[in-house]
Each structure stands twice: as structure tokens, then as C-alpha cells.
């Protein structure tokens, strides 16, 4: 896997070259962030011709390594104004890996509004008119593309939100059923793809050989051990396949950290109604699937397919952050309304976290009543039609708050906070504050034992130890994002003595390297340095690490406040 495919969206031309210099050894987030740092002027407008959209499989993607099919998408974010890497499952990452493509780079920008479709095959790259797909939702777009190019091709597309270049727009990826259940959700990258007038990218790896391995036997042995580690751990082998990520609803609610009613309370009285346990019960009763991988080769299967009360498909990839944002944060307690909102977001191409928080802000501003699922559904539908109120909602929480005169807008670096109140889980608050991505829970998701020097005795309600913990989580996460591995592998790795070594063994066997676990940590640090450097050039300083002032209000039930100063947070960004 060594080629970089550059597509000039203005000229409708392309160029494929071997990756040169420092890019040759990078993958996933490490590669997208390095290209953004090196090639995108940090001060450019994110929707201008100077921005680039980079799509990169992880280093292990395309091989048989379990859970290695995650895709990184990077650019300067139109939502935050800083660097962005958004990560997703789907079919594209592994197919790019098998085609030997390290990255697709969308460059420049057309001067008219005509959208194109990019079709990548083993021996060809085509940039075709996409007129017939313009205006369609992601579901219909993917359905038609599978009809034309064959079932199981990888598809990443934008819906009406991305076409309108709205800053809550995401890029959706076809899941294993051809539905838009996967998303590179955060940071408005769908708007960047829309600015390049690319409606969809189709990736067909038909006719390709297996990814070459430097030492096939060693790779096979390491992957066997890898699968064993994942299957035998209670998180990856039992809880996630049974309840999905929404198993967290009850737990985070119990901890008093489930942001409720636009971050007013840490508990939602109807948490049980939107919990993973309840969702699983309904799936078992109505049909659907309680477990599904977000990409082929996943052995965790934390995704799902959710049906309505009549047993008909409603949505898929119905996960914790989505259910929280569209449920507890808006106080919508009817799980079927929450599922319909998820379906609409997937089809229109909206980030579910940003949209849920935006709906909470809209309720705060009196646009629709608190907890009114039907009114929320009608409002989100307006994003697709392009009417002014839809454009306001589709531009996210800050824009909507300004439009409605709201002073309670839960964001960092203009990106909506995810599903954990930083007053009750202070470590995640440090990540929201200091991550180069803006408020982002996945930036500090992974844990590796050799860097976990704190943790066991950390008190989520106190400051002590949480800055160091967040920093270590951010480093490990960046490294895992570069390998193309799912972040959920991290907890099996944490509890397994040879977990990190097994990942390193797979990388070494694939590329003929002799990396050590320390090299993986160095990679994580180098990624964060790149990202902070870009943000610094873009004008970000420590004042952008502030949480909104209302987080100084006590949060029931613990009545804790956000009490870090900017200076106290800065060590999370220092790596020397």
C-alpha cells in the first residue's frame, strides 16, 4: 500500500504516485493529519479551493487483521476552523488497502455547481457527472450505486446537508447492507466534500490480490492471537456484541454524567427507556439484528439493525452517542422517535452528535418544545429541503444558538460536546478542552497499558490525575487511529499483557519492520504534535481550550463544577 491518488476536482483529472518521504510510512490519521499540515494553508477558508479532503485507510486495513477496517478522513474543519480527522467503518478502508492506495486527496474546487462521482477500480479512476444523484439522500444514493456498480462496492457519499455545505454535514459510508449506517461524523467534513462538488466515491477492489505481507506466517500467528484477545475479553467478546455501545446509557446515567436537557442535569429520568438493554429487548422482539460489524472482519459486532413496531427497518448503527444526543440531551424519551431522527441524520448526512445538541439548543431557544420528538423530526426534515430554518439547524449548535439568541451552547472550538458531562467525568472534559479536534470523546478513547501510568485511582469528580490521564488516552488513541483499528480494541489491549505487542507484531509482519511498543507511542505523540501545530498556525491559543462559562454551574446529582484553569490544562498538550 504505497500510492497516493490525487484528484483535481476542478479539472476532473487525477494523478497516482508512490508516497514519498515521510508520507510513505504513515497511515490513517497520521497520514491525513500530516498531509493537512504540509499542504493546507492553516488560514484558508475550509470551503475554499485551498482546503483538501484526505481519505486514508489505516496501516493494517486490507489485511486479514481483525477490526482493521476503519477509515480516516481529514481536512481543515469548516465547523471548528482547526484540523479534523473523522473516523468511520464501512467498506471503503479495506478496499483501498487492497488496491494499494494509501490516500485519496481531493484538491481544488470546481467553478460551477455540477457534482461529480468518483469511481475507483483496480485499473481505472473515473470522474463522472453525478447529476442523477444530486439532491438524493444517502440511502437512495447508495442503493442506486450498488445497483450500478455491484453489491459490496465501497461507497462514501454526502446527502443534502453536504451538498449545501452545512457545517454539521458528515460523510456517510455504506455499511455491509448498503445502508448509510456508518459516518465520518464530526467536524463538517461533508461540507468540504460538498465544496469540492463530489457527491460520492465508489471503491471497487474486484480483481485485486491479497495485500502483500513481508512475513505471512508471522502475520497469521499474530492475527490469531489478536482474535483470541478480542474474543476472550468481556467488553469486546460479550458486552458490546450483546448490547452495543448503548450499554453505556444506564452506566453513565448512574454516574451522574449523562448530559440531560442541554447539559442541565447529569441524570435523565427516562434513561431506562433509551438504554442499550431496552433497545436490545425491542430488537429481539421486533426483529432486526442485535449485533453487526461496522466493517467486514470485525469480531466485536457492536453495531445493530433496529426495526419499528411493525417490524420494518428503521435504522442501523443505533449507538450510544446518537441515542444520548437525540434522546437525553433533548429529553425525547420515545426510543422510536430517537431512531427516526437517527435515520434522518444518516440519510440527510448530518452528524448525529452535532444535530442532537443543536436540537437541544433549538429547544432552549423555544423553537420547538422540550422532549417533543415529532417536532424534532419535522425540524430535521427541513435541513433536506434547504429552507432557511433547515440551513440554521444544519449548521450546528453555535450557529443555531446565535440565530435564536441562546446563551447556553455546549461546545469547545465550536463543536458540540458529546455524551459525557465534563463536570462529572473530568478526564473526558480535559480531552474536550485540549484535543486538537474540538470537543471530541473519541480523541481520548484508547488505553494502552504501557502508557497508562494513572487510572485506577482516578476520581472522576476531582482534578487530580485527570490531565495526565487524558493526555495518555489521546496519545494511545491517535496511534490506534493510524493503524486503522477500531478504538474498542483498546480495552482488550489494556487488560492483556501482550496486547500492544500483538498489534506491533502484525505491523512488523506486514511491512517487514522491527517496531517496538515505544514506537507506537512515539507515533501517537507525533500525530498530536502535527495537529496542534496546524491549529497554532490557524490561530488557536489556550483561550480556545475553554469550556463554556455555564459549566461553572453545579451539575446535579454530584453538584460538581468545571474548575480547571487554562493553565492547568496545557500540560495535556505538551509532549517533550
Amino acid at each position: 500500500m504505497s500510492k497516493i491518488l490525487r484528484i483535481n476536482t476542478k479539472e476532473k483529472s487525477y494523478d497516482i504516485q508512490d508516497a514519498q518521504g515521510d508520507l510513505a510510512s504513515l497511515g490513517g490519521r497520521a497520514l491525513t493529519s500530516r498531509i493537512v499540515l504540509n499542504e493546507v494553508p492553516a488560514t484558508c477558508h475550509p470551503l475554499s479551493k485551498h482546503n483538501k479532503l484526505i481519505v486514508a485507510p489505516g496501516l493494517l486495513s486490507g489485511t486479514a487483521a481483525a477490526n482493521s477496517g476503519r477509515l480516516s478522513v481529514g481536512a481543515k474543519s469548516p465547523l471548528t476552523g482547526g484540523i479534523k480527522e473523522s473516523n468511520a467503518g464501512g467498506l471503503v478502508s479495506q478496499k483501498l488497502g487492497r488496491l494499494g492506495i494509501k490516500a485519496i486527496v481531493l484538491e481544488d474546487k470546481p467553478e460551477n455547481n455540477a457534482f461529480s462521482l468518483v469511481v475507483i477500480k483496480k485499473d481505472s479512476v473515473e470522474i463522472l457527472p453525478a447529476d442523477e444523484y444530486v439532491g438524493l439522500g444517502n440511502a437512495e444514493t447508495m442503493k442506486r450505486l450498488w445497483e450500478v456498480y455491484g453489491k459490496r462496492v465501497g461507497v462514501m457519499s454526502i446527502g443534502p446537508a453536504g451538498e449545501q455545505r452545512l457545517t454539521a454535514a458528515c460523510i456517510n459510508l455504506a455499511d455491509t447492507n448498503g445502508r448509510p449506517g456508518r459516518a465520518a461524523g464530526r467536524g463538517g467534513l461533508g461540507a468540504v466534500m460538498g465544496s469540492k462538488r463530489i457527491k460520492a466515491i465508489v471503491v471497487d477492489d474486484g480483481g485485486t490480490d491479497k495485500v502483500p505481507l513481508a512475513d505471512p506466517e508471522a502475520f497469521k500467528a499474530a492475527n490469531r492471537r489478536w482474535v483470541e484477545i478480542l474474543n476472550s475479553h468481556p467488553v469486546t467478546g460479550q458486552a458490546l456484541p450483546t448490547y452495543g455501545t448503548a450499554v453505556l446509557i444506564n452506566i453513565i446515567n448512574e454516574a451522574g454524567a449523562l448530559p440531560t436537557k442541554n447539559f442541565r442535569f447529569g441524570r435523565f429520568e427516562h434513561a431506562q427507556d433509551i438504554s442499550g438493554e431496552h433497545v436490545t429487548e425491542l430488537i429481539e422482539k421486533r426483529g432486526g439484528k442485535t449485533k453487526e460489524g461496522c466493517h467486514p472482519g470485525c469480531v466485536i459486532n457492536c453495531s445493530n439493525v433496529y426495526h419499528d413496531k411493525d417490524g420494518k427497518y428503521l435504522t442501523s448503527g443505533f449507538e450510544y452517542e446518537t441515542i444520548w444526543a437525540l434522546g437525553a440531551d433533548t429529553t425525547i424519551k420515545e426510543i422510536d422517535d430517537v431512531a427516526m431522527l437517527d435515520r434522518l441524520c444518516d440519510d440527510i448526512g448530518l452528524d448525529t452528535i452535532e444535530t442532537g445538541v443543536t436540537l437541544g439548543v433549538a429547544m432552549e431557544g423555544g423553537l420547538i418544545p422540550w422532549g417533543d420528538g415529532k417536532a424534532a423530526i419535522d425540524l430535521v426534515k427541513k435541513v433536506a429541503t434547504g429552507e432557511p430554518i433547515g440551513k440554521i439547524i444544519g449548521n450546528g449548535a453555535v450557529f443555531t444558538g446565535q440565530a435564536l439568541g441562546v446563551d447556553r451552547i455546549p461546545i469547545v472550538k465550536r463543536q458540540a460536546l458529546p455524551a459525557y458531562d465534563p463536570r462529572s467525568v473530568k478526564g473526558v472534559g480535559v480531552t474536550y478542552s485540549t484535543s486538537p479536534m474540538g470537543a471530541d470523546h473519541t480523541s481520548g478513547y484508547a488505553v494502552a497499558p504501557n502508557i497508562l501510568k494513572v487510572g485506577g485511582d482516578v476520581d472522576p469528580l476531582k482534578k487530580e490525575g485527570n490531565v495526565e490521564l487524558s493526555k495518555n488516552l489521546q496519545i494511545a488513541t491517535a496511534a490506534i487511529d493510524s493503524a486503522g483499528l477500531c478504538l474498542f480494541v483498546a480495552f482488550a489491549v489494556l487488560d492483556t499483557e501482550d496486547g500492544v505487542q500483538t498489534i506491533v507484531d502484525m505491523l512488523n509482519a506486514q511491512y517487514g519492520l522491527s517496531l517496538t511498543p515505544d514506537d507506537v507511542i512515539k507515533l501517537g505523540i507525533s500525530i498530536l504534535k502535527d495537529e496542534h501545530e496546524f491549529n497554532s498556525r490557524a490561530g488557536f491559543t489556550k483561550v480556545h481550550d475553554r469550556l463554556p462559562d455555564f459549566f461553572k454551574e453545579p451539575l446535579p446529582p454530584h453538584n460538581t463544577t468545571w474548575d480547571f484553569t487554562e493553565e492547568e490544562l496545557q500540560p495535556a498538550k505538551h509532549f517533550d
Partner: protein
Amino acid sequence: MATILFNAFSFLQKKLKSQLRPYANVRIEVADGATVRDLVAGMGLEPGDIEAVFINGCVEPIDSLLHHGDRVAIVPPGTPGPYRVLLGMLGKPKTLK
């Protein structure tokens, strides 16, 4: 006697349900001086079934004393994400073992 509010999550819900035991927002009377270990002793759970115990929203040892009005929840192994670390579930002996 003290009255507590009890919840069980994840697999523990199915386990208690199979024994026809309530598991969500249940008010239970416990003897004075009882601990969480005493509370769960008669529930047919096995060592290793519980990874963490919440008392009033904080992770506490399983031998913590219960008080009138406490809100108690039991969580099995399998909490995803970094929350086992961030919420303090790791590091101290807090299980049935």
C-alpha cells in the same frame, strides 16, 4: 432497617429477570449495617458477575456500608470505552471476588 434504591445493568438485568427478580429502580429494605455484598448475596450472582458498584453515583468497594436513601447500582464486566478508567472502576478490589 434502611431502604435503598437498586438497579442492575447489562447482563445482570437478564440474569435477575430469569430469576423473576426486579432489577430497575427497585426499593429494597436492608438490615442496619448491611453492605453491598450482603445485598447481592441472595440474588444468585456468581463471583465475577459484578465489576463495579455505584453508590450514589460513585464507584465504591463492594463492602461499603449501606445507608437509608442510598442509590445503588451493580455493573458487570464489559463497560466499553475508557470509562472503566475515567469512572474509577479499575484499580481497586471492588468485585465479588
